[in-house]
C-alpha cells in the first residue's frame, strides 16, 4: 500500500510526458509543412543570438522596467524548476525533501531563494494582470486579442500565481510539522523558510494530521498543476518560452532591408534575355507557384515564427499602418498564420493524408487590404523580442497576389508599365532622365 502514491505519481508523469510529446510532435509536423529553407550559415553568430536575444532577452530591455518584471517571471519559472526536480524525485522514490540531507545548510539557502522568487513572481503576475485588465494597456486592449487570446493570457498569469501559492503553502505546512516533530517531516529539519513561515499563524490552529493532508494536497496540486501547465503550453501563446530559443537561432542575419531572392524567376529572366543559356530540355519541374497562398508555400521558418509569437503586440504598436488606423496588424498576421497551421494540423490529425484545402491563408485569413498597407519599414521586425518577421510573410503573400492573381491596385499597374516602358515609376520619358543637368 505504501507504494501506491509512488505508482500513481509515476503514471501521472508518464501520461503528462506522453501527451506533451504527442502535441509537440504535431507542432513540429505542422511547422515542417512549410517550404524547405536551408538556414545553416554563420553558426557562431546564431549561438550569440540565442544567448543575447533568447536567454538574455536583449530586445525586452528597450523598456527596462517591463524587462525586469518579465525576467522575474522567466527566472522564477526556470529556477523554480530545480525544485520541481526534487519534487519529481521525491514522488518517484517515495522520499521527502531528498536534497535536504545532501545539501545541508545550502538547502535552506536554496529554498529561501526559491521562495523569494515565488513571491516576486506573484507580485509581477498580479501587476501584469492589472496592466492587461484594469489599466488596459493599448496593445492588450486591442481587438486583435478578442476572445481566446485574451483569456489565454489571463489563464497563464492566474495559473502561475496559483502554482506559486501552492509551493509556499506546502513549505509552510512542512516547516510547521517539523517544529511539532510530526511524522516523517521531523526527519529532515530544514528550519523555517523566508516567506512561508508567515503562513504559520493561520495554520497553527489545525491538527498535525489535517495539516499533513493539506500538505499532501498542496504537493499533489502543485505537481499536477505543473503537468497541466506543461500540456497547456502547446495550445497557448505561452509556447514562446520554448520556441524563442530555436527562433533566435534561426533568426535572419542579413540586413533587414534585403528581400529574399527568387532564383526561379531570376533564371526565367536570364533565359529570356540570353536564350543560349537556357537548358535544352525543360526539367520535369512541377509548375511552382510564385509567392505564397497558404502555409505550405511559406518557409518552415515563417511557421516557426508563428508558433513562437507570444502576442505581446510590440510589433503592432510600432507599425505605422496600424498607428494610423489601417487594418494591418503585424501581430494578427502571425496569429492568423498560426491559426491556419493549427487548422491544417487538426485535419491532418483526423485523416493522415488529406489536407484542408477549403480555405487558404491568403484571403480566408489574411486579407488583401491588410497586405496592401505594409510600408516594409521593418519596425515590427525591430520591435519583436523573439526575432519574428511578419514582413517576410507579407511580402510572400504580396508576390502571390501580383504574380498569380494579377491582383494590383490600378496605380500599381501604371507604375509597373511606367517602369517597363520609361524605366522609372512615373510616366515620364526616359530621354528626360538627365535633364536636371541643364539647370546646373
Amino acid at each position: 500500500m505504501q507504494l501506491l502514491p509512488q505508482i500513481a505519481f509515476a503514471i501521472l508523469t508518464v501520461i503528462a510526458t506522453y501527451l506533451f510529446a504527442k502535441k509537440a510532435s504535431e507542432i513540429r509536423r505542422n511547422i515542417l509543412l512549410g517550404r524547405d529553407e536551408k538556414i545553416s550559415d554563420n553558426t557562431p553568430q546564431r549561438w550569440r543570438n540565442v544567448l543575447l536575444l533568447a536567454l538574455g532577452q536583449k530586445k525586452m530591455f528597450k523598456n527596462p522596467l517591463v524587462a525586469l518584471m518579465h525576467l522575474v517571471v522567466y527566472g522564477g519559472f526556470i529556477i523554480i524548476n530545480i525544485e520541481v526536480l526534487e519534487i519529481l524525485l521525491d514522488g518517484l522514490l517515495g522520499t521527502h525533501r531528498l536534497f535536504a540531507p545532501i545539501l545541508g545548510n545550502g538547502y535552506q539557502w536554496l529554498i529561501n531563494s526559491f521562495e523569494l522568487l515565488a513571491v516576486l513572481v506573484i507580485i509581477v503576475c498580479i501587476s501584469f494582470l492589472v496592466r492587461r485588465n484594469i489599466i488596459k494597456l493599448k496593445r492588450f486592449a486591442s481587438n486583435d486579442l478578442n476572445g481566446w487570446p485574451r483569456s489565454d493570457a489571463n489563464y497563464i498569469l492566474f495559473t502561475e500565481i496559483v502554482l506559486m501559492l501552492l509551493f509556499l503553502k506546502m513549505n509552510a505546512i512542512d516547516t510547521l510539522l517539523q517544529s511539532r516533530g510530526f511524522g516523517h517531516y521531523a526527519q529532515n529539519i530544514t528550519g523555517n523558510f523566508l516567506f512561508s513561515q508567515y503562513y504559520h499563524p493561520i495554520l497553527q490552529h489545525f491538527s498535525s494530521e489535517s495539516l499533513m493532508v493539506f500538505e499532501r494536497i498542496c504537493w499533489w496540486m502543485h505537481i499536477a498543476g505543473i503537468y497541466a501547465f506543461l500540456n497547456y503550453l502547446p495550445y497557448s501563446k505561452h509556447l514562446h518560452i520554448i520556441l524563442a530559443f530555436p527562433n533566435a537561432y534561426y533568426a535572419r542575419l542579413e540586413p533587414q532591408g534585403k528581400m529574399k531572392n527568387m532564383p526561379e524567376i531570376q533564371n526565367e529572366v536570364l533565359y529570356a534575355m540570353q536564350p543560349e543559356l537556357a537548358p535544352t530540355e525543360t526539367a520535369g519541374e512541377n509548375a511552382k507557384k510564385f509567392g505564397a497562398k497558404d502555409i505550405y508555400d511559406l518557409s518552415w521558418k515563417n511557421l516557426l515564427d508563428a508558433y513562437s509569437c507570444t502576442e505581446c503586440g510590440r510589433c503592432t504598436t510600432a507599425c505605422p499602418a496600424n498607428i494610423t488606423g489601417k487594418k494591418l496588424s503585424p501581430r494578427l498576421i502571425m496569429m492568423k498564420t498560426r491559426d491556419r497551421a493549427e487548422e491544417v494540423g487538426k485535419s491532418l490529425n483526423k485523416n493522415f493524408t488529406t489536407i484542408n484545402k477549403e480555405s487558404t491563408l491568403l484571403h480566408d485569413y489574411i486579407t488583401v487590404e491588410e497586405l496592401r498597407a505594409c510600408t516594409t519599414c521593418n519596425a515590427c521586425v525591430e520591435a519583436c523580442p523573439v526575432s519574428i518577421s511578419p514582413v517576410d510573410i507579407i511580402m510572400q503573400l504580396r508576390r502571390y497576389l501580383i504574380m498569380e492573381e494579377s491582383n494590383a491596385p490600378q496605380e500599381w499597374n501604371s507604375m509597373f508599365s511606367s517602369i517597363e516602358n520609361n524605366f522609372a515609376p512615373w510616366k515620364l520619358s526616359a530621354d528626360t532622365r538627365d535633364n536636371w543637368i541643364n539647370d546646373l
Partner: protein
Amino acid sequence: MKINTMAEMMANNETPDILFWVGCAGSFDARAQKITKAFATILNKLSIKYAILGKEEACTGDPARRSGNEFLFQMMAYNNIQILNGYGIKKIVTTCPHCYNTLKNEYPELGGTYEVVHHATFLEQLIEEGRIVLKEDHPFSEKNISYHDSCYLGRSNNIYDAPRKVLEALKTELVEMKRCRSNGLCCGAGGAQMFKEDEKGNKRINIERTEEALETGAKVIAAACPFCNTMLLDGVKNKEKENEVAVLDIAELIEQSMI
C-alpha cells in the same frame, strides 16, 4: 558645370572614381532634383572624379519588388547589372536609400557586386577628412535641426550615426524626435506606398510623422531620402508650416553651408 556620363568617360578613355547613381526620384521629381543638384555641386566643388549613367540609368526595381512584382524587378536588375558590369563599375554613391539597399544588398546574388555607399556616409567621410569645410555663419547656424531616419537607411541597413555626424558638423542644435533611430517612424512611402493611395485608415502616415517632427520645435527637418523628403514636405504643407519649417536633405544643408 559639366557632368560626365559613363559613356562620355569611356569615349575619352577615362575612368571615374565613383559612379553617382541618381535614382528615379532624383532624376524626375522636381523637389528631389534639387537634392541631386546639391550633391552634384558638392562633388564638383571638391573636384571628385565621378560620372552618372545618364539616360542609361534605370529604376533599380525596388518598388516593383516590394509590391510583389518579382518579374519586373528581375528584369530591371538584369539590365542594370549588364550596364554596370559592362562599364566595370567598382564604386557607387547614391542619394536614395532605396536604390542603396537594392544595389548593396540585392544585386550581389544576381551578379552585380559593387562597393555601394549612401551619400550620408560619403559626406561624413568627406567632412572627417577635412575636404568639406563649412562656413562659420552658414544659413542654418541659428536654427535647430531634427533628423528623420529613413527606414531603408536605418533599420534596413543600420546607418544611424553617419547622417547625424554630417548634421553635427553644422554646429547647430540637433533635436531628436520621440521615435528616432531604430524606433523611427516610417514616412509612409516605402513598400511601393509612394505609388498608390493609402489604405483606409484615420490618418496619413506622413501626417503622423510630420506632427512628431513639428513637436520638436526644429526649424529644419533633415532627411536623407528623396521619398521621405516628399512625404514630410507634404505633411508640413498640410499643416501650413512651410514658411516656418524647411524640409531639407543633408546634401542641401551641406551644399548651402560649405565654403
